[in-house]
């Protein structure tokens, strides 16, 4: 438990969520969700649209009242609105919320002033998110990626300990997403606790220290991406271009457990990929071979029995 104001115990939980629930009519948007986020951790909430990620995040941020359960952020209850806690959290909302017709710099200065932050600090944060050249551009003229980065800078300008990001990479092109990942990593390196939602599986796998997989308002699994995949104990799938090897011969390969043909490819399932691949290598059959191990996508499939669709 963190004592309010000190924030030095590295192993302490920055956020404690216990049995959190929210119901809208018949819909159980969030259903008895519990988790903890450690200080300095990059914590992801992953799930398809409508899984309850945003509602969960909003209750943790303290802008939505839970029907049941408790949330403590930095040792303080998040609800009702707590002006002592607010300066220590930074929130980036789903719709990038900017003051109309103000420039990038003015947005930062304005948001900062609400927290009593001197205007001069805006420059450093523009630099941090790579928008120094766009300082005098009005918000309406920024690209989607630039808006997201500015919006993160606005959430950071008062130097909070905990940063909440709601789908920061949604609807960005791959280039802009990669830019943003870098910004997020930089922020984490500075010791911030980051809680963020995403529906991109690959992204959660790359960025997060730990991931909570949500569906239908519940957390189905919570661990580091690697541990989740490992826990799946899924076989490796090795694909060979069609016509290189017959299915019958493939079954004879060392380590091959199962052989199937799909879309003109020969797919060999194995639990000893090293053995299989060295056999293929010695037979000089590595050209065009693809190796696919399990991902969070398979974890989701295993947990829900259906394909992941954002």
């Amino acid at each position: 438990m963190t004592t309010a104001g000190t924030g030095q115990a590295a192993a302490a939980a920055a956020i404690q969520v216990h049995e959190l629930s929210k119901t809208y009519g018949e819909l159980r948007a969030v259903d008895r969700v519990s988790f903890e986020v450690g200080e300095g951790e990059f914590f992801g909430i992953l799930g398809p649209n409508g899984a309850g990620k945003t509602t969960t995040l909003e209750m943790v941020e303290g802008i939505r009242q839970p029907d049941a359960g408790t949330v403590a952020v930095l040792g303080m209850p998040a609800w009702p609105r707590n002006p002592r806690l607010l300066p220590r959290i930074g929130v980036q909302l789903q719709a990038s919320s900017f003051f109309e017709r103000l420039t990038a710099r003015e947005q930062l200065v304005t948001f900062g002033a609400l927290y009593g932050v001197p205007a001069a600090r805006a420059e450093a944060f523009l630099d941090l998110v790579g928008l120094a050249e766009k300082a005098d551009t009005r918000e309406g003229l920024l690209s989607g990626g630039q808006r997201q980065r500015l919006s993160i800078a606005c959430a950071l300008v008062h130097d909070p300990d905990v940063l909440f990001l709601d789908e920061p990479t949604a609807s960005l092109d791959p280039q802009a997403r990669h830019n943003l990942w870098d910004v997020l990593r930089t922020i984490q390196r500075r010791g911030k606790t980051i809680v963020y939602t995403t529906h991109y599986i690959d992204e959660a796998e790359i960025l997060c220290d730990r991931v909570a997989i949500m569906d239908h308002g519940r957390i189905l699994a919570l661990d580091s991406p690697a541990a989740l995949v490992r826990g799946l104990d899924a076989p490796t799938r090795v694909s060979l271009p069609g016509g290189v090897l017959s299915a019958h011969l493939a079954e004879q390969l060392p380590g091959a457990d199962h052989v199937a043909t799909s879309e003109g490819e020969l797919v060999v399932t194995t639990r000893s990929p090293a053995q299989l691949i060295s056999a293929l290598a010695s037979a000089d059959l590595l050209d065009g071979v693809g190796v696919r191990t399990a991902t969070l996508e398979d974890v989701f499939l295993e947990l829900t029995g259906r394909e992941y669709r954002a």
Partner: protein
Amino acid sequence: MSGVESGPPGLGVAAGRGDRSGRGDPPGLGVPAGRGARSGPTPALRQLLTLGQAMLRGFFRDRNALFFTFLFPLMFLVIFGLIFRDSGQTRPTTIGVVGSGPVISALPATVVKATPYASEEQALTKVRAGDLPAVLIEQGDSVVLRFSAADMVRAGILQGIVASVVDHANLAATGQLPRYRLVATQVEASNLEPIQFITPGILSWGVATSAAFGAALTLVSWRRKQILRRVRLSPAPVWTVLGARVGVSLVTAVVQAVVFVGVALLPIFGLRLTGTWWLALPLLIAGTLAFVSVGLLVGAVAKTDEAASAMANFIVLPMAFLSGTFFDISQAPRWLQVVSEALPLRHMNDGMIAVLVRGQGASALVTPLLVLVGFTVVVTAVAVRVFSWDEA
């Protein structure tokens, strides 16, 4: 098909910026700001000013809003000012005269312009054609006025004038001194040309419109863009949003008043203010608050900018007509006048006319101020009840 590709740690795009952010740590990262950098003894006031400044900046960069706040009401002022510029002074009415005598020669030239015709028949043709309102025929002791019924008011006025001239001539013929004397003097300190009424009306309407629209659009667009939510997530007290909006609306109202009155004072329009014009300031403030409260109600109910605009228009524009902003409401049916008395804009109008051009004192402000403040309290209370911070 690729394996578990745990994205290369230093992405290409990232490297350049990574270097930069590595050396130049933003100040304070690590030193929490909320606790350390609280400045000034009244942070709430600072937060209010911050929000107000953001609102004002956004407003003055919005050409559309500027047009509808300042130029659009000014256009009405100019149009009405020019249309009605001369209607305050009565131009002489032309009538036809046939023959001559003491009555015809005594017709007052400031009111009646006599055009002689050779024959009665010729003049009557003009009257029938609508070119002349009446013809006066004087032959010896006989004085005949023949008028067109097309304009009964004008015919009545002409009859009155001719009758008084005839009476005057009769009295003079008796050689007696008149027993009664009529003394007529103007009540108002200054002249009451149309610009004197148009300016207060347009000012009230312009202030009402911009106050209502400003408050409604701020609430709706700040809610839609989640700025309200962002403010609620900051330590700024939530009332600072309201305070900032009221402040911006008051500043706008004062600028509007200076612009409209300034233009009306130009010689071409010829507005003349009375000595009590400064009493318009409390009225301006109370009127702005009343229509900010209308805007708050609209902004609490409306979900989109378009809906907010339509609703604000629907409330303010009919109110402007019923309050006698553009024309005199005193000719309207009784029930409409009762409706008019219930409207805040009517009282703002009346108060503005009283202090700006009629030269009445502070006592003329009592009713308008009470009505406006009462209206503000009630409407704001309703708005607070229906308000929500987030889109449903």
